[in-house]
């Protein structure tokens, strides 16, 4: 990155440069806002109106689109499936990853570095490489086409990133507290449970949100591992809605109602926790 001024012509007065920055950055940012508003507006129009007046504001909102998508297209069921599989996966993920990250950052044993790198390696494994083997394994375990199977895979593929970020978080905590607790006679698991875990809460919350959003939006593994309509997650339901449009004619308004249903939970989380999410991602670097 060039230092301050170099990207714009040097002779421009500072005010102009500032104005140019605001226009470029503001324009790009404004497009994000436009995207959300346009989709929500589109979901509240009739499809005919969406095509004849794509820019209008729906003053007489057609909430029927939502009823149709939620009930007839079964987005209600898919929403519950997603909520269930994603929440439980994140919960299990935290239960297994937090202790592992703690031991890997604070324990003193010979294979510590090896195990750490071994876990980081998992971030480099491309998910599509696992499509066929996972389908085979799930069939053997009798977990093919189940949300339990999908959840187990969700936990496994999220472990490397989660442990990596939490490890960094534990390492940043002061070690004096540990020694103090030890002197006071705490056992090692008591130190973890009563001293380190409460201190690590912000870090745990960060990875919880990031994984929730990531898994909520996850599509490719669900596509490979889930077959039956009743087990679909929300993103799969969205895809099947797009696919079915080809035969049922273009119910674009219903489609955008689906898009709104898919994106509302994650956007709501982002509205309140954007700082935390962004700092978590820059800390982990990878997802």
């Amino acid at each position, binding site marked *: *990155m*060039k*230092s*301050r*001024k*170099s*990207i714009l012509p040097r002779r421009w007065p500072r005010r102009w440069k500032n104005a140019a*920055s605001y226009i470029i*950055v503001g324009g*790009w*940012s*404004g497009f*994000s806002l436009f*995207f*959300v508003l346009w989709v929500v507006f589109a979901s509240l129009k009739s499809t005919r109106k969406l095509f004849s007046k*794509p820019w209008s504001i729906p003053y007489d909102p057609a909430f029927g689109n939502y009823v149709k998508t939620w009930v007839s297209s079964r987005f209600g069921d898919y929403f519950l499936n997603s909520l269930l599989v994603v929440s439980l996966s994140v919960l299990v993920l935290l*239960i297994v*990853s937090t*202790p*592992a990250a*703690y*031991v890997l950052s*604070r*324990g*003193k*044993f010979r294979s510590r570095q090896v195990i750490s790198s071994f876990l980081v390696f998992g971030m*480099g494994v*491309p*998910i*599509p*490489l*696992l*499509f066929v*083997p*996972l*389908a*085979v*394994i799930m069939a*053997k375990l009798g977990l093919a086409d189940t949300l339990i199977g999908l959840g*187990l895979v969700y936990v*496994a*593929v999220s472990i*490397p990133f989660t*442990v990596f970020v939490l490890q960094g978080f534990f390492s940043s905590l002061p070690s004096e507290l540990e020694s103090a607790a030890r002197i006071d006679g705490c056992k*090692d*698991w008591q130190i973890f449970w009563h001293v380190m875990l409460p201190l690590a809460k912000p870090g745990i919350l960060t990875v919880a949100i990031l994984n929730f959003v990531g898994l909520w*939006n996850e*599509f*490719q593994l669900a596509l490979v591992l889930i077959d039956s309509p009743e087990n679909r997650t929300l993103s799969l339901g969205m895809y099947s809605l*797009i696919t079915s449009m080809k035969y049922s004619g273009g119910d674009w308004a219903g*489609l955008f109602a689906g*898009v709104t249903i898919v994106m509302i939970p994650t*956007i709501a989380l*982002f509205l309140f926790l*954007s700082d935390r*999410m*962004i700092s978590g*991602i820059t800390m982990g*670097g*990878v997802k």
Partner: protein
Amino acid sequence: MMRRRMILVFLMPALTLYLCFLVFPAIQAFYLSLFETSGFGDNVKWVGLRNYSRLLTDHIFWLSVGNMLVILLAGGAAVFGFAFLFTVLLNSGIWGKKLFRAMIFMPNVIAAIAITTFWSFVFMPRYGLLTNILKFVGLEDLAKMAWTAPENIIWAMLVGLVWISTGFFTILILSGADKIPIDMVEAARLEGANNRQIFRLITLPMMWDVLLITLVLWVVQAITVFEFPYAFGGPEINQNLYTPSIYLYIMGFGQRDPIYQLGYATAIGVTMFLMMVISVTVLRLLLRRDQVEY
């Protein structure tokens, strides 16, 4: 001192899940790619490396590699161009840096499958938003352009993909830039260094690690990209949108008419993995040499 038993108990659950559902399938992929099989267990035939030699002459596979390169190179140039531009502008002392950063990043929290629906509407022939705008400003010829025709569709897809990825890489590069201590720049300026010298001697070296990490990340993402182009293609996806991952999925699980060439599909996955490892290694070597030269 932590007891051995506690270390074991704390590590085991995570390691077990990780081994069973990530490491083991990744290793198994290499093994499966040596067979010809259409199902699970029966009719498994050992073919050695023949799946790989078949890949060499499979023009659809090479088409998917070509598409991947378009995403990797053209998409990468756009993503990094924008990300650096926004980093500079956001750090030029303007108001609302955090707000703009969050807005630029926002598409990344929305499901790719939801975003593609919007972009499909933008590029839709005749009624799409883009056609609409072009008509409005009087560019009738451009408005008639078929953005989703086979020869254009990958570029239409790339617009949406770049939009999302720019947000992701902006926050990474921005965080790298923010780590540069401001007093170092000020000290250099006091010593009489000009902007170019500050860029060459302070900013660039301090940004080097971030640049390397983000480039590696982009290469990995671009080589393995699946969700966005697949969803953008909709039902019966056009071959001009195939990436190696999509071709892998189609060969393994098909679309409406399953093909079930599991061995062949896995060979595509392994090839993709090797392409990834090689590119990342080359990238690291190239950038390391540059760093020594500096």
